[in-house]
């Protein structure tokens, strides 16, 4: 469960103060599928980074699964990212020097899972996104849609409760984007909490709940739950 209590992220550029997030209150429960929309520069990515423990709020409190993340060290935050959160980015962010299989394997390596178990988990994750046949390829040699599938495999290989996706369909054509969205639906049905960031209203429409960010302020748009 994610609870933002009066979260602000403030950047000081020169003597100008930018509120990338402006006193955001927010609760996301297990199993939800939340779409966050908003124009460019509204603070969507900032929100996701804080939610994903990649960044820390300037003000306010973030409780993850009932525990304020302030208490954690950097190493503990790394472990939390590794076990509880799977990230999916607009530009896929696969490592080009590694094969698809090796990319998917990385989170498990950092978790200290031993080799035999890594192999079966990687195979499962790749099968789940339909990428088993490309496992020996490098990211450069497959299509964008396939890269995003691989990135999703990497995000789910540790079986995290929470999946954070920042514009996952932004670099894909609409048909491929739909396929990826279908995957997210499957993952949500399988029990993953999904927070999906987009500025495309039709993509957001597939979420059960939609939040709107504008100039760092959040507003509830729709909640089907």
């Amino acid at each position, binding site marked *: 469960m994610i609870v933002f209590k009066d979260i602000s992220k403030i950047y000081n550029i020169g003597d100008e103060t930018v509120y990338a997030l402006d006193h955001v209150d927010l609760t996301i429960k297990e199993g939800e599928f939340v779409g966050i929309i908003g124009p460019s520069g509204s603070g969507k990515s900032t929100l996701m*980074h804080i939610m*994903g423990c*990649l*960044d820390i709020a300037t003000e306010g409190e973030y409780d993850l699964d009932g525990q304020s993340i302030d208490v954690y060290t*950097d*190493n503990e935050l*790394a*472990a939390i*990212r*590794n*076990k509880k959160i799977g*990230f999916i*980015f607009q530009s896929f*962010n696969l*490592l080009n*020097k*590694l094969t698809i299989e090796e990319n998917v394997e*990385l*989170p498990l*390596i*950092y*978790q*200290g899972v031993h080799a035999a178990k890594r192999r079966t988990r990687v195979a499962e994750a790749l099968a789940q996104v339909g990428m088993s046949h490309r496992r020996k390829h490098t990211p450069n040699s497959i299509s964008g849609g396939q890269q995003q599938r691989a990135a999703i495999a*990497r995000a789910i290989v*540790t079986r995290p409760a929470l999946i954070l996706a920042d514009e996952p369909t932004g670099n894909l054509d609409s048909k491929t984007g739909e396929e990826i969205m279908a995957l997210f639906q499957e993952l949500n049905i399988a029990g993953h909490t999904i927070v999906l960031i987009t500025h495309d209203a039709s993509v957001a429409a597939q979420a059960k709940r939609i939040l709107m960010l504008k100039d760092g302020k959040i507003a509830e748009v729709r909640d089907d739950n």
Partner: protein
Amino acid sequence: MIIKSIKMALKAITSSKMRSFLTMLGVIIGVTALVVLVSLVTSATKAVTDEVASMGKDMLSVSIADNKGKPLKIEDLKEIAKDRSIDLISPKLTSVAEHKMRNGIKSSDVTRIGTNGSHFIIEGYTLASGRLLKHADLDNNSYVSVLSNDIAISLFGSTDIIGRDVVLDGVKYQVVGVLNTPKGLMAETNRNNIYIPFTVAQRLQTDASTGNGIREFLLTAKGADNVSRAEQVVKEALKARFGDDPEAFHVYNQNEMAKSIDEIYKVFALLLGGIAAISLLVGGIGIMNIMLVSVTERTKEIGIRKALGAKSSSILVQFIVEALVLCLIGCAMGIAVSAGILAIVNGVSSGAAAASAAKMTFSMSGTVILVAVLFSTVIGLVFGLYPARKAAKMHPIDALRFE
């Protein structure tokens, strides 16, 4: 985890082979310089010291630096030689003389050594023809000479020259004997000598400061067991004469000589090794430079890895291992190149050895390989640490936003 890090490092290194090779080049050259130079020097040292040690363990060599106005005479040597521990004793007076050919035009400088017959036995020289110097030659101040083989050939074109004359500084000496070419490395220096009776050499000596005394002599003990006693006897006798001045005279035994040669070569090896180590250090700086570039280039990668749950320590280890692997691959290549170079040097030197009596084989010492590996490791760690820390300290979000 470490094995995985090494695999990752190898992947990063092999993904841009040319650049990795150029990065390693400094280390390759440094290691090659270190291994080759030190191997050459230590092999040479071993050859020379072995030779010196084998050259008569019962030999002592004495040099007198300051005779305090009391020059040592042949009679004094005879007195010293009376001790039961001493076998042979031989004075030695070395100078350079000009040799004129009979036509009076061609001339060359030769080494003229005034000594007695024992000298040849102490040095282990053998006769090719004629005879050695005799006591009578010294007693009668006879103008006779014994030539080393090379000089006989170069002056007369033959060793069959008994009864002929050599003219040194305008003085004629009848040739009574010609030596065989001596074997071994040290003998190289004694191939152009002309030996004349010590008493005759002494007369030629015009330098007043030497006071016509003996400045140098060799002796052998009766067997290796008597060496320390003989050394004692000589030291006592010289002390009685010249007083308790440690600078006045020196008595060397072969072990000491081998040791002092060893010392000289060690300094040599250290010096050359030091220079090579500096080039290795420069190689390390090259690695640091490229690693820093690589960290900047891979900012995004670092961000992704951190997002996936890599701890700072994992990133640190990854980059240090990469620097280390670069250094060690460079080191291995350097050792391989060194082996090649030494093999070539050995080929050349064994070709040359056919012509001369000396033979030397250059081999890589285990110690220098160990030093090279350790040094490369240290360099990898030291110069990898700064870039690796820089990578590890990167904030995941700054790294992810980097394009």
